[in-house]
């Protein structure tokens, strides 16, 4: 398949995925906005006012980056996992399997869809944040890079989850038991410097910590970890997961008997 044809196919999957979540915006875009508004009311206004500053920044400002990125992570992931699993469930994935599409285009298409949902939800949540606090940008490039790379990474995670999933239960196990705890323990609501030394070191094994801190650096200029390390980790994860996802489709895992 020629490169121009592959590009057309990639665009097709991306548009299809974009329209899919936009068509049901009330289920996909509105709930994260409401959730984040509640976080701001409870943790920012009510509890946050009792906590004081962290790294010289008011608590409500400190949690903004984490809350935005949490929405990006969960939406990029859930878009890919639900969309690709539905395609398996309806068997509409066969539309792509019988076509000459290379598997890397299929993965890239679904990931683009997940990334777009992450970005759209991220923007909506950022707008909601403006009702509670002012957002300033310490570094536009770092903010944008982390924003996009994180959504790509978790869209890939969602895609791999969908490949392995056999039932609807399987698509909620990882978000519930792995993704949510890692996100909450990734420093959304606190600096790891507030933890005992053992838990500080344990937190370093959590990849989400690096993303949240890199994003916080982009917005506020403060971080618990080294920025270069954060980008290396994110890019390594993206590369590894992309290769793994393509290999799964090459072998027909979860889709070909």
């Amino acid at each position, binding site marked *: *398949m*020629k490169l*121009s*044809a*592959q590009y*057309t*196919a990639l*665009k*097709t*999957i991306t548009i*299809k995925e974009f*329209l*899919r979540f936009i*068509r049901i915006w009330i289920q996909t875009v509105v709930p994260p906005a409401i959730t984040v508004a509640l976080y701001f009311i409870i943790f920012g206004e009510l509890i946050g006012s009792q906590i004081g500053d962290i790294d010289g920044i008011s608590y409500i400002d400190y949690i903004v980056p984490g809350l935005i990125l949490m929405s990006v992570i969960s939406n990029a992931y859930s878009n890919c996992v639900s969309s690709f699993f*539905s*395609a398996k469930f*309806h*068997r*509409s994935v*066969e*539309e*792509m*399997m*019988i*076509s*000459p*599409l*290379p598997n890397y285009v299929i993965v890239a298409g679904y990931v683009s869809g997940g990334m777009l949902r992450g970005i759209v939800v991220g923007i909506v949540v950022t707008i909601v944040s403006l009702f509670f606090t002012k957002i300033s940008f310490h570094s536009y490039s770092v903010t944008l890079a982390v924003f996009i790379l994180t959504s790509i990474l978790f869209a890939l995670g969602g895609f791999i989850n969908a490949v392995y999933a056999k039932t609807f239960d399987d698509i909620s196990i990882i978000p519930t038991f792995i993704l949510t705890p890692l996100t909450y323990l990734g420093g959304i609501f606190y600096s790891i410097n507030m933890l005992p030394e053992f838990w500080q070191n344990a937190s370093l094994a959590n990849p989400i910590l690096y993303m949240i801190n890199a994003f916080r650096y982009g917005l506020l200029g403060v971080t618990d970890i080294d920025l270069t390390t954060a980008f290396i980790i994110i890019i390594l994860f993206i590369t590894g997961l992309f290769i793994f996802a393509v290999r799964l489709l090459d072998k*027909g895992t979860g889709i*070909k*008997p």
Partner: protein
Amino acid sequence: MNALQIDNLHKTYRNGVAALSGVNLEVHQGDFFALLGPNGAGKSTTIGIICSLINKTSGKVTVYGVDLDKDPAAARMHIGLVPQEFNFNIFEPVGEILINQAGYYGIPRAIATQRAETYLKQLELWDRRFDMARELSGGMKRRLMIARALVHQPKLLILDEPTAGVDIEIRHSMWSFMRELNDNGTTIILTTHYLEEAESLCNNIAIIDKGVTVEQTNMRALLNRLSMESFVLYVEPELETLPDCGDYDITLLDKHTLEVDLHKGQSMNSLYARLSECNINVKSMKNKSNRLEQQFISMMNNKDYP
């Protein structure tokens, strides 16, 4: 060059079930080819392998001279599939399903939109193009899958029970459409349990049983092998008893209806003459079941393979 060549195809599923144990097929360009077999014979597995939906265990599949293993993308370009079960996203609009399918083949959106219009109009779905696929009736969903399979204009169209569950009127219009496609050069492989459909449409035939090709021939040769045909005759006047018709194998179904098993060597003309001698007029007649069905049942029951 054959449109499709399958050599010694084997498939054993992970649970140990051997679905195919040596399928061989040769489908010529321009054929209207019937692929028949009882339930579980391996037809859908064979089609799944041709269309890259199922991994084969061994064997070779060549589509228009392209080895499926060596250049799967080029081989897939030639194939269009209408599967047995609905396999589109029911929450997508009808028009988008076609446009997206074309996009997967690298067809730009403007051309895809034109083609979608052409095929949706041909298959009488144009008025439903903005409706979600779930809102279509069963027959419309079947036609949607045919339109989708054609949108990249494949040379080889595989129809896996395309008329299952559709009413007789739509079935006949689908037959005309398929004939027209074939007349325009598209090679068609048809699997169906409606054997009158296969007999009426197809010129060549293969039968698969227990994962093995047990017969591949042309339709006329297969039907010539029929040793007996059964007919139902509607007669007058009323009959109280069975007339004496010599060697003819006749059953009285009711006062106006006879069933005749006509064996090879016996002719309908001499039967009519015989009935005439008994002052019985034949008002009309029909085949009890279609000829391919009789031959198929005979082969399956007697394992009467060449």
